[in-house]
């Protein structure tokens, strides 16, 4: 056997490529099934039906009418823009409220105490969104706990109208999504070495400068990944806008729901669904561009 043939022989026997591939495929199959059957196929079907309308003979033909309907009717795209703006606003609010919490839990108190507080933060997740939404109704209603308390101590004479407004809707959206901001931000803050903060302070940076130039840039991957999750949850939420938002606070998911289940216009509903998908993807793409973050870094 020549030297070369020998070498090739060893290579073939030592390289477990085939068996490795089989294991890999076996492991990947459930994931692929999940993606294809539950996400890709229904979306393809929706995409096709969003470009179809029924003609006079009852046949489905290609048309852009579903999308044109969206732009023609003011209420649709107003809701669309409002949903986008509110979702961005709620994401920003979630960041403002939770960042100090995450900082406090990771950098100020001891690890043992932090574990307890994190457990407290998780409790709303156990009871489910519907229950917490009803909880807010009990709190915010005209005869709810807050109004009752305010009237009892004489601050107001008549109940303040809080329920079924944008205010109550935002509270509901914030409450159900906030935790998903805390967790990724905490995990990046945990890896922030305290001596970085001390080094910055040693080099003459004020507290605000340290926050702006060290802490925020360092935790940016966590902030962006938290923001993406919160934004997605909020823009696609149905319960909080529907129950807490009332008549005046239309959310785009409600429009889609109406198309599918009230007017049974599935084709227009599909078009609306795709518009929402494009909206959220577009905003996230812009946010990643703007913050200079890469999706793969944010995801880890």
């Amino acid at each position: 056997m020549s030297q070369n043939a020998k070498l090739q022989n060893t290579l073939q026997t030592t390289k477990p490529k085939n068996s490795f591939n089989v294991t890999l495929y076996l492991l990947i199959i459930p994931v692929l099934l999940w993606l294809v059957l539950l996400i890709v196929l229904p979306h393809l079907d929706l995409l096709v039906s969003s470009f179809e309308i029924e003609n006079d003979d009852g046949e489905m033909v290609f048309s852009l009418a579903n999308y044109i309907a969206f732009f023609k009717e003011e209420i649709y795209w107003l809701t669309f823009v409002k949903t986008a703006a509110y979702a961005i606003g709620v994401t920003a609010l979630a960041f403002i409220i939770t960042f100090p919490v995450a900082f406090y839990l990771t950098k100020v108190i001891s690890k043992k105490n932090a574990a307890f507080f994190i457990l407290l933060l998780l409790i709303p997740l156990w009871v489910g969104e519907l229950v917490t939404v009803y909880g807010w109704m009990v709190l915010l209603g005209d005869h709810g706990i807050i109004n009752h308390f305010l009237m009892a101590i004489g601050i107001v004479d008549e109940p303040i109208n809080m329920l079924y407004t944008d205010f109550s809707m935002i509270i509901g959206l914030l409450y159900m999504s906030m935790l998903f901001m805390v967790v990724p931000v905490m995990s990046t803050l945990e890896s922030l070495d305290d001596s970085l903060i001390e080094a910055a302070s040693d080099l003459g940076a004020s507290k605000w400068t340290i926050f702006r130039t060290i802490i925020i840039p360092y935790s940016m991957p966590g902030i962006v990944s938290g923001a993406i999750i919160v934004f997605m949850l909020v823009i696609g939420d149905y319960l909080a806008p529907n129950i807490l938002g009332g008549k005046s606070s239309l959310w785009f998911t409600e429009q889609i729901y109406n198309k599918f289940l009230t007017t049974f216009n599935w084709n227009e509903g599909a078009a609306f669904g795709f518009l929402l998908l494009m909206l959220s993807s577009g905003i996230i793409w812009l946010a990643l561009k703007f913050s200079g973050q890469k999706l793969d870094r944010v995801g880890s």
Partner: protein
Amino acid sequence: MSNILEIKNLTKKFGDFTAVEDVNFSVKDGGFFSILGSSGCGKSTLLRIIAGFEPETEGEVIIRGESMKGVPPEKRPVNIVFQHLALFPMMNVRENVAFGLKRLKLSNTEIDSRVNEMLSRVGLEGYEKKDVTALSGGQKQRVAIARSLVMKPSILLLDEPLGALDRKLREHMKVELKLLQREIGTTFIYITHDQSEALVMSDEIAVMHEGRFEQIDTPRNLYKNPKTAFVAGFVGDSNRFELSRTEGDTLITNKGWSINKKSSMAEPKVLYIRPEALIINPSEGLTDVETFGITIKTILFDGSNTKLATTVTGTTEELLISLPQNAEFDGLSEGQTLQVGVHINDLKCY
């Protein structure tokens, strides 16, 4: 030269634990001052007090004649190089070094010229745009030092900055740091547990033990004339003998070895002899040299640091002797007996 730093009666307590106890010292302008001690002796706490990260419980830190009481770290004319360097990972080399200058609101041209000057001084020209996470250990070290030195501090504090480097690089950086300090003339206060770092680089060394300073001296004096038993044992290698009693000029160890020391102090408890203080086969007629016999147990070969592990003949006391590598003693073998001498000034009693 005037004193740039004065520490007066400094004490730091964490609850019941006293980390730093009544420490007094001063550092001359332009000096290289080391604080040497094992881990947990309070040296890092002391450094953090000088930098302003920890408030002192009692006493005072005075820099250039001004009391630093209540002055926050960002307002003190000192900069610190952290143990793990604490480079900002989201910034490149230039941004790291420029960080402090930007806080001074200097013009961009001045920041640029000072950063460039400092980077060339530490040998990092051309690395401005490099990510700090992509640098080697020695380069990171230099960025950290440049980042502090560019601020032109009155005092540069260094908290075991060479600890994470491998041995070869550490030896190299030791020399480099000393030369850099000579060149720029900034006062360095250097914290280390590595006596070799302290001995090589410092003008003065303070040996710290359990929150107190045992001795402040030049490296040579510290090595030659340790004032306390701790310093004698901690700095350099030493043979240590517990003394049971003295009879006139004669010291008697626990294991029954007796050796004369003419100028004896009252009631010494321990005796230290450095391995290199022992003279193998001393010539006849040397004055003030005590001679005795030893038996070689084994030869510990370590290049220039080779030692003989021996027992003092007639006792069970063990004694390490430095063996010069000049071919004179190549013929030594285990079990051999030798005459060994030691000058009485090299018998250190405490």
